[in-house]
């Protein structure tokens, strides 16, 4: 298990950095917010990212993928974090696409996977029903009805849910909320009768949605994987998403740290750069340390995703470690960035606030610090 990016992955990182710096710098995120673009990202940017092959990274060549491994997603998400770039890479490819790949049958794969990789269609994962992430606590019911199933219940905080072509809905087919057994996955096209999608605008100005499923009838072909046995694939895919979010968080934290460090060196008060003050120097050094530890945890988690022989518990530990450490670090760095910038730090004019808002949302998404701390020790 290597804790460095390979030469190939470094090339990918360079190209992602150049592409996003040119095409999706932080100013784009500001404009998307100011214009209240409901989609939360620029379709043309996504088409060009697909052209670059980003959507093909984690999939085997047989499905039109690059077979580049999940580790290849790391540099991309770090760059997206640094530039605060919005794309549906997490929702449609890492979460939705991976579920179709890992749990779907050949018909479902043929129908959806190439379209997702090609960027012609977009999937979104509908898992959580409450504000706090808890993927086993699913109450939305799916009952056998005729030749298919009837789904009834609500989903909260579906990432990139507005405008998706279909949803992977996690539903309970047996057992109680909190059980990992009895969960099933359904592919539900957006135009299915009884399905209502509404916007859930969050402070990060990305695309978030709520779903209401009112006695939604789907055919048996909608079932993704085995009835009642959706948990294993779901956890595998959630771990991919969590790791990608950790990479995005580390990218944001790195960018905020460098901006703040530069400010400490140039901002003059009391006739001297404020970076000469030891109280600020020590806090800056602490941020540097946390970034270094986060980097190590992230690299281990990325490597774990691509290890076919790894024990699921070991993978869970490494992923939760990465999400916990990167999230905790990003929050602290964002808070320090605001504080050290002083008055200008709380103005909307400074980009720091945009990062702060995305950091808080990404940290909470797919499990916050407390969730991952608990999950880490549960898998000890």
């Amino acid at each position: 298990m290597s804790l460095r990016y390979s030469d190939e992955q470094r090339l990918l990182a360079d190209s992602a950095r150049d592409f996003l710096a040119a095409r999706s710098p932080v100013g784009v995120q500001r404009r998307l917010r100011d214009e209240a673009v409901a989609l939360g990202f620029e379709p043309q940017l996504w088409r060009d990212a697909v052209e670059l092959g980003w959507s093909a990274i984690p999939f085997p060549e047989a499905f039109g993928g690059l077979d580049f491994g999940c580790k290849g997603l790391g540099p991309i998400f770090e760059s997206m974090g640094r530039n605060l770039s919005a794309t549906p890479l997490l929702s449609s490819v890492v979460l939705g696409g991976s579920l179709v790949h890992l749990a779907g049958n050949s018909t479902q794969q043929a129908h959806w996977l190439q379209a997702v990789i090609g960027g012609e269609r977009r999937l979104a994962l509908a898992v959580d029903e409450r504000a706090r992430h808890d993927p086993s606590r699913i109450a939305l019911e799916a009952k056998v009805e005729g030749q298919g199933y009837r789904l009834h219940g609500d989903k909260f905080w579906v990432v990139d849910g507005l405008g998706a072509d279909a949803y992977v809905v996690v539903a309970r087919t047996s057992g109680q909320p909190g059980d990992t057994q009895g969960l099933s996955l359904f592919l539900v096209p957006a135009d299915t009768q009884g399905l209502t999608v509404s916007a859930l605008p969050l402070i990060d100005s990305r695309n978030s949605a709520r779903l209401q499923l009112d006695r939604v009838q789907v055919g048996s072909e909608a079932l993704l994987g085995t009835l009642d046995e959706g948990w294993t694939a779901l956890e595998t895919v959630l771990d991919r998403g969590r790791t990608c979010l950790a990479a995005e968080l580390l990218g944001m934290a790195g960018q905020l740290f460098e901006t703040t460090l530069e400010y400490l060196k140039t901002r003059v008060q009391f006739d001297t750069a404020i970076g000469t003050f030891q109280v600020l120097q020590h806090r800056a050094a602490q941020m540097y340390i946390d970034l270094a530890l986060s980097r190590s945890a992230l690299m281990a988690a990325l490597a774990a995703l691509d290890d076919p022989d790894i024990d699921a518990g070991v993978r869970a530990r490494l992923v939760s470690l990465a999400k916990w450490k990167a999230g905790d670090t990003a929050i602290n760095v964002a808070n320090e960035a605001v504080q050290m910038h002083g008055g200008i730090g709380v103005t909307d004019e400074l980009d720091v606030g945009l990062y702060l808002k995305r950091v808080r949302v990404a940290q909470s998404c797919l499990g916050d610090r407390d969730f991952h701390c608990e999950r880490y020790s549960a898998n000890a």
Partner: protein
Amino acid sequence: MSTIEQFRHDTRAWLEANCPLSMRTGMAEGDVVWGSQNPQFPCEDARLWFERMRDKRWFCPEWPEEYGGAGLSDEQLAVLESEMRRLKCRPPQINLGIWMLGPVLLAYGSEQQKRDLLPPIARGEVRWCQGFSEPNAGSDLASLKMAARDAGDHFVVDGSKIWTSYGDKSDWMYALVRTDFSAPKHEGISLIVLDMRSPGVTPQPIDLISGKSAFCQVFFDAVKVPKSQLIGPLHGGWNLAKYLLQHERKAMSKFGEFSLPSHVDLLALMREYVPAPQTQGEHALHARASACAMNEHAYNLTVQRMGEEARAGDDIGGLMSIMKLVHTEQERDKFEVLLDAMAGHAFGWQSTAFSEQQLSVTRSWLNSYALTISGGSSEVQLNVIAKRVLGLPDARKGVNP
């Protein structure tokens, strides 16, 4: 086969044949062999391994042959180190003379000094200690005051050194002394070496809050040191000290992968002492313990990453600068949780009412305070990171907002 591949092949075969199996495992504190006039071995295999590596001249493999080394090139040295890592060979001996003083002598010593001092070090025959800190020169090392007065063909040394590890067990000391009291503080310091058996040298072990320790205070009362034992230029010792400390960091990074693992498995102890959390307080304790364990895990991964990056030729200066601070602070944080979890079980002292494990937790906890201070306190480490790694500017003298 290329020459270097041949060397790898031969080295591997030699190590396979000569490194006893029991010397290919992790080591506890009592397993360390110190090169000295009278070396002590924990077992016969340790003696064998010591003698074979000594005779192979691989205590100091990269030193020139005329000074007792094997004259290996950088490339060969890297091969030897990687082959030793591969077999998990223990270091055959530990000696400050090799990692700390040796490089300074090679760079700054006179020809005579190199011929006199280096070969015995390379044979593991002399145990060296370091005389840097003084009671009034800790973090501010350059303010040291131990005097070496010029007395013709020798110096007369008066004063004391403190925090000298194994000062009472060492054969020789390298020490920073003040040779000019009128110059600015960095410019009146010299580096000397001296025999610890010289008349007037008195090492005195220091008891810590954790009990017995390896640390000594060493008193010097009119100790005669021949001028031939001045290393480098008179009053030029500060640069040598900086050079020496650089090698300390380099050596530590090399041995980072072998760094002794933490003695305390926090989560295992939590399961033992707070097995089934019931109350909110017990749940909170477990959450605190998990956070500590996770930080420790992240640190261990960082050690691993640093080794990997070093082998790939990446710049690991930044990572190296954080390791000591992170490790020692994390250990202390762990004890904060552990003490609350074990409560009364953690406060025993020389009593049969407590298990050996419990008594060792008490001692280790108290010892953890020393670790965040020695070898550069946490605050000095943060200064180093801020200034050398992050490039934050020095405060101007007299600015006092």
